[in-house]
């Protein structure tokens, strides 16, 4: 059982995960940000490895990805930055990025390296379920890496059940039809959607992300889900000049 699976076995409510882009705002802050986030109450983290064409992302994460790439971030460099990860950070870590970067690195090599540095899972939004199942599932499982699938308001119940069957940590519920960085408006339709998923009694816990930006949306999502993921709002608030202070201040809203 990896750290992620252990966490969800222990905690069932109110989990908070933070996404940030590796290499942003400074190339070598990756580990420092992880440490600060753990100290200020994050339950698990998603570290984004940047891609030139991030179609599922809105302007904030696009910009942080571009700046990170311009500073020289690569997947091999990220793994190098993470080599002392487990001496400094104990909470579960996911890597998030696009499939082409993983394919060029090599899927098996990627999983192996994740296991080596102590990464517990990954989110690859443009790796489809069919391809995962046919080509990569055995490799991911061999190295104990949980692959996280996304579900949206338009995903059919049949497909959600299939995703539930293929998942072994949690399901990532996309809050509304949008790229990252929008503002979730807590409406009847969104709460009906969250409730619909909660009522399906899936075997995996689920966590809501996309558009969670403040205490109000955080609380609304937590009412139905096992936790929430905050990305763009966090990335937007990081202050290069006052890295730790800005992270602690942001986390203070929720913890």
């Amino acid at each position: 059982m990896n750290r992620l699976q252990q966490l969800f076995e222990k905690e069932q409510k109110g989990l908070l995960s933070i996404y940030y882009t590796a290499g942003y705002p400074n190339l070598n802050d990756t580990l420092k940000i992880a440490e600060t986030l753990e100290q200020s109450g994050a339950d698990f983290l998603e570290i984004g490895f940047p891609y030139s064409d991030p179609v599922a992302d809105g302007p904030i994460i696009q910009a942080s990805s571009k700046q990170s790439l311009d500073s020289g971030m690569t997947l091999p460099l990220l793994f190098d930055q993470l080599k002392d990860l487990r001496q400094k950070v104990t909470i579960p870590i996911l890597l998030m990025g696009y499939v082409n970067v993983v394919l060029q690195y090599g899927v098996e090599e990627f999983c192996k390296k994740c296991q080596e540095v102590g990464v517990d899972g990954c989110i690859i939004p443009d790796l489809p379920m069919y391809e995962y199942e046919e080509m990569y599932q055995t490799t991911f499982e061999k190295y104990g890496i949980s692959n996280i699938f996304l579900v949206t308001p338009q995903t059919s119940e049949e497909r959600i059940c299939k995703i539930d069957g293929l998942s072994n940590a949690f399901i990532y519920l996309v809050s509304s039809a949008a790229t990252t960085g929008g503002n979730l408006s807590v409406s009847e339709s969104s709460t009906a959607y969250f409730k619909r998923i909660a009522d399906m009694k899936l075997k995996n816990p689920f966590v809501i992300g996309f558009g969670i930006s403040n205490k109000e949306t955080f609380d609304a999502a937590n009412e139905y889900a096992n936790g929430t993921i905050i990305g763009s709002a966090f990335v937007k608030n990081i202050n290069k000049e006052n890295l730790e202070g800005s992270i602690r201040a942001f986390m203070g809203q929720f913890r």
Partner: protein
Amino acid sequence: MNYFVDERGYYGDFGGAYIPEMLYPNVEELRQKYQSVIDDEQFQKEFKALLKDYVGRPSPLYLAKRLSEKYGANIFLKREDLNHTGAHKINNTIGQILLAEKLGKKRIIAETGAGQHGVATATVCALRGLECVVYMGEVDIKRQAPNVARMKMLGAKVVPATSGSKTLKDATNEAMRDWIANPVDTHYIIGSVVGPHPYPDMVAQFQSIISLETKKQLKEQTGSDLADYVLACVGGGSNAMGMFYHFIDDESVKLIAVEAAGKGVDSGFSAATTTLGKEGVLHGSRSILMQTEDGQVVEPHSVSAGLDYPGIGPQHAHLFKTGRGLYASITDDEALQAGLLLTQYEGIIPAIESAHALAYLEKMEFKGGENVVVCLSGRGDKDMETYMKYFNL
């Protein structure tokens, strides 16, 4: 060997639908319905009627006599430049707008590089009275002012793509993001044989009218429906796929796809994807693309905006890998010279895209009497500024 799409949405190792879950319902709806819609008798009737009466098809297959004498072979030009809006792009947008209507969509989005596909999309939206939003790189908007004005006049909203390199690939990303945010009422008209399955196959089928007509016209003019060589330029590859489509299983016909070498394959300013690229995933399909060792997409270069794309469609990647097609490249200079040559030998000013295919004739050796078809995918009006600068006209 199967050169066409299989039931999984793949062409050999290439294709598939590498899309985020947010796009899955849209793409899945298309996947389930596209073939039955296209095969529907009523759809075919409407599609053919519009191609005939609105686009002006069939486009002529013209035996270019002076060019033939120069090269010592029978050079036939498939005149897609004579279509309404000036290029082959409209074959696809007519098909997709009818399909969008059958799916009950109210809003159309598209990406465009040079603006040809944007104009072809805005045209069919005006024709059918549908809302149209075209994403175009900020850099391209500045480079292609007349096409921007045409789209606006046709009633389309042109939205600048300001992310990344601000060109075609970024416009495509923005269109995909729009589709993510508007999953129910919107249809995305992709302009080339790229994107997630079923787009490459769907666009190829709509463009296949080019080779369907060519075969019939060859039969009338030469007595055989087969040629020795069929040539077309390739950016994403839609005119080439339309030109190759009905010849693919006739293995005696040599298929030649011409990519843009830009300032030279090794110059760092090139769009010669099969030479410079590696297998990977871009815009929803596994294909060949120009990228760094780390998998970041590289910005291509070509004097011709329509070939300025870092990937090729998955079916092209398959034809390339299996050796069924020959993938060559032509530099900016060679293409511009070929454009001038056609103009002065035949009185036809070609689009610089199409001039890449024409330029390859210089590199071929003929015994004499071979039948060669070149797809003249578009007319050169849009390229006059480039021609003027290059030739000091």
